[in-house]
């Protein structure tokens, strides 16, 4: 034993310094800055409700942690044996202590259980204050968003107005997924042939990343999306713009021998049209995401690949190399064809049309 105790003491000198360093690192790590997908900085009522329960349980857990670990560590130093020690008192237990340390955790749990149950019931009820219904459908591996109120459908970016509750009705087109946008709401799994519900209302315009949280096959990691919260006027401008890009006749067909026209022609002849719709208005769900407005989306390939011309070109050249297992096959396009297609897809950009809002934003 003589050998062990000095080495233990030497190690012990480092313990406080180590603890402080680790605690500081951990605290720094717990700051949500730099984590766009954090759960620790809620920006909507639903996420706020979850966060309150989390904080309560985290505070209690922290107190219990320091008390129990403290008692353990103190005992380890206080009761270390020395050579020649007599046999310690042979204590078999203590009924009073057993009762006390059964009761104390039970009391602490009440302080977690009460807000837990309250919040369960609060979050279970969708507010009835004229919510905006969005039908969310998970697909391997992208998200589809349908706005029945406006008869619109889109993918990848979910636009929502601030100040209005969003009522998500969610299902899947294939396997299970889970819709998770941490700053706005928690997770909700989606099942075939079943509507699952989630809701939130945010007052803060911004772009909030989210992603699939239930393993759903090869590209589970690349099934992200963005929730774009906009002031009501901006949101209306977006949806009117999306409807407008879906009906290009209004804005005139592209010049017959332009790059855009060539791209449009390729889109129709190179099998693109078999899987993708380019009209958001009343379009059916197809194999691939709806492409109305794709030109102005934040990302492609489901919310993670920035929507640049280079990335679009990489994608069109060889989608399997960018996202293996994705349903889109390699189409064997030439560079010239890709350039034309990109020009066409860029023409499918939502141009927010504030002027149009006044005429059409009477849906409510």
């Amino acid at each position, binding site marked *: *034993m003589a050998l062990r105790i000095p080495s233990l003491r030497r190690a012990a000198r480092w313990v406080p310094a180590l603890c402080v360093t680790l605690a500081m690192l951990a605290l720094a790590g717990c700051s949500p800055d730099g984590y766009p997908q954090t759960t620790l900085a809620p920006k909507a009522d639903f996420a706020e409700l979850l966060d309150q329960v989390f904080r309560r349980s985290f505070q209690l857990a922290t107190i219990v942690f320091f008390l129990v670990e403290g008692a353990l560590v103190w005992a380890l130093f206080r009761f270390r044996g020395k050579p020649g020690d007599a046999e310690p008192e042979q*204590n078999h237990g203590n009924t009073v202590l057993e009762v006390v340390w059964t009761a104390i955790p039970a009391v602490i749990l009440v302080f977690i259980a009460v807000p837990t149950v309250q919040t369960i019931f609060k979050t279970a009820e969708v507010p009835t204050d004229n919510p905006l219904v969005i039908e969310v459908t998970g697909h391997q591996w992208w998200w589809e968003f349908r706005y029945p109120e406006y008869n619109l459908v889109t993918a990848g970016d979910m636009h929502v107005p601030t100040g209005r509750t969003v009522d998500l009705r969610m299902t899947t087109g294939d396997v299970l997924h889970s819709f998770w946008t941490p700053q706005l709401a928690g997770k909700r799994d989606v099942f075939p042939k079943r509507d699952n519900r989630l809701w939130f209302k945010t007052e803060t315009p911004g772009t909030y990343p989210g992603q699939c949280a239930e393993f759903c096959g090869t590209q589970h990691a690349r099934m992200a999306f963005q929730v774009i919260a906009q002031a009501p006027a901006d949101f209306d401008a977006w949806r009117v713009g999306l409807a407008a890009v879906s009906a290009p006749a209004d804005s005139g067909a592209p010049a017959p021998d332009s790059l855009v026209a060539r791209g449009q022609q390729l889109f129709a002849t190179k099998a693109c049209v078999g899987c993708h719709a380019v009209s958001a208005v009343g379009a059916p769900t197809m194999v691939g995401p709806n492409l109305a407005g794709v030109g102005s989306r934040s990302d492609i390939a489901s919310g993670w690949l920035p929507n640049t011309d280079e990335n679009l070109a990489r994608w069109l050249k060889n989608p399997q190399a960018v996202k293996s297992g994705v349903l889109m096959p390699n189409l064997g396009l030439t560079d010239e064809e890709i350039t034309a297609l990109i020009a066409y897809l860029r023409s499918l950009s939502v141009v927010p049309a504030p002027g149009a809002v006044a005429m059409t934003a009477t849906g409510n």
Partner: protein
Amino acid sequence: MSTIAMGHAGTEAAPAEKKGLWSWITTVDHKRIGILYGVTAFLFFLLGGLEALLIRWQLGAPDKTFLSPEAYNQLFTMHGTTMIFLGVMPLSAMFFNYFIPLQIGARDVAFPRLNAYSYWVFLFGGLVLNASFLFNAAPDMGWFAYANLTSKQFSPGLNVDFWIIGLQILGIASLAAAVNFFVTIINLRAPGMKMMRMPMFVWMSLITQVLLLLAFPIITVALVLLMLDRNFGTHFFVPSGGGDPVLWQHLFWLFGHPEVYILILPAFGVVSEILPVFSRKPLFGYAAMVFSGCFIAFLGFGVWSHHMFATGMGPMADTVFSLGTMLIAIPTGVKIFNWIGTVWGGSIQYKTPMYFALGFVAMFIIGGLSGVMHASPPADLQQTDSYFIVAHFHYVLFGGSIFALTAGAYYWFPKMTGRMLSEGLGKVHFWLMFLGFNLTFAPMHILGLNGMPRRVYTYSAGMGFGFWNAIETAGSLILGFSFLVFIWNILKSLRSGAVAPADPWHGATLEWSIPSPPQEWNFAVEPTVDSRDPLWERRRANGGTLPEPARVSGKGIHLPSPSYWPIVTAFGTALTLVGFLMHVNLAVILAGVAITMIGIFSWAFEPADH
């Protein structure tokens, strides 16, 4: 009673010492089977660890392409499946095998040949599962295998089938072993060892066997249904035919949650043996420890849906499963407090087993506290399927089970091999493992709360996950290295370690009353027990020391004879199920059934001695 009942005054000659490969293949000695379990499980554990290191390397920086998505999904599925079914469970089975009979004063388990059968079925199951790598068809849908991703439509390859069949084979091994240990503990205790005098490891093992017996039939049924869906066109879990993927989740977690306690209760038992011995003081609150263990196991069957809060079960189900889950914190807390009560006021001997046992208590507290946090559905809606959960269950299963099993390995190695492990290397192992473990898994709490989901093969740089993932990967390398130190310690000590006396630690239980390693018959004379710490009583009665027990001739001791029928029957069992894996190949299935039947008959009619 078994054929090896004590006090059987036979006229048999002393059993000859058994050597060579054949003696291992035909052995029915619980100690040798225990060693087989231990070596096999440790090799599988290293394989699972290697898979973990590949996973960590891939995640060490954003957007890495070290592993393809397909390879990553296979590796994380196989890592989980391997660690649970081929690592932690059979490592516990090593200790059940070796030490239940020794701690209760028995000469073997109740059914020695069934014991051998369990081991061989386990080995074949592990091999079948890992053979999937050879066909580039390793399971790739997660160890939870959620329907309907597992349907033929979305997983057309053999990956899911390998998983189903591998787990079915392993389930047979677990069930056979559970029956065996349950009967052994109930029937073969030495005179005077009442239930409330059993060593705590035996108690926790007994509870684990009950959990195995009740939980494994559930996964067996679920796997049969899944196999029917995939091979015979049924629709239990396929929504297009009216089936329900949620049914799979209920069945899986109805098994899966008790499985968590199957993984941790043996660890509780090991630590409850070690803390008193190295505190030189009896276990604090023995009865509270027993009943809290029973209570945890009982509640463990009623909380499965806390894995499913995000499925939208409705507020009433959420409430019930949440409160039930929180209740488990109470008996678990009782255990932790009693462990601290055990060392409190003791005279702590800082030997390597004690380091790991104390490391277990310290780490398990963290895993327990994070567990309470996501027992609350509102908090869980953010935490579930995030890295916070990965952190939580590694604190429970690595910080808990693996630390405790390692403690058990250091504690019992001298008994099993007759050699002491090096204390110096042991402590290097401990500090490296402790450091590596915390560097690997503590940052996962931070990442999970900051939005990193589980089971992702990569993440984009903009998500901010890179820094802590790099730390974790560095930690995992330290963790991996700590096991190299452990292996080095084992190899070095086996060759040249100090010779172990019968009782190197001043133990309290019967296994320390016999030579190290024990002779084949364990106890030449049936021990009698009249307290919970029989050896401490004997030592006190003897003035503080006990004489080194002599190795004796086994003349007159009847032992079951070796048999190769267990391995034959196990092979037949595995072959039958492999037939289902081979697109329901009737010829293979029938051959398997035939071999199994021949094995069982020959086993049944084999003469007791030859």
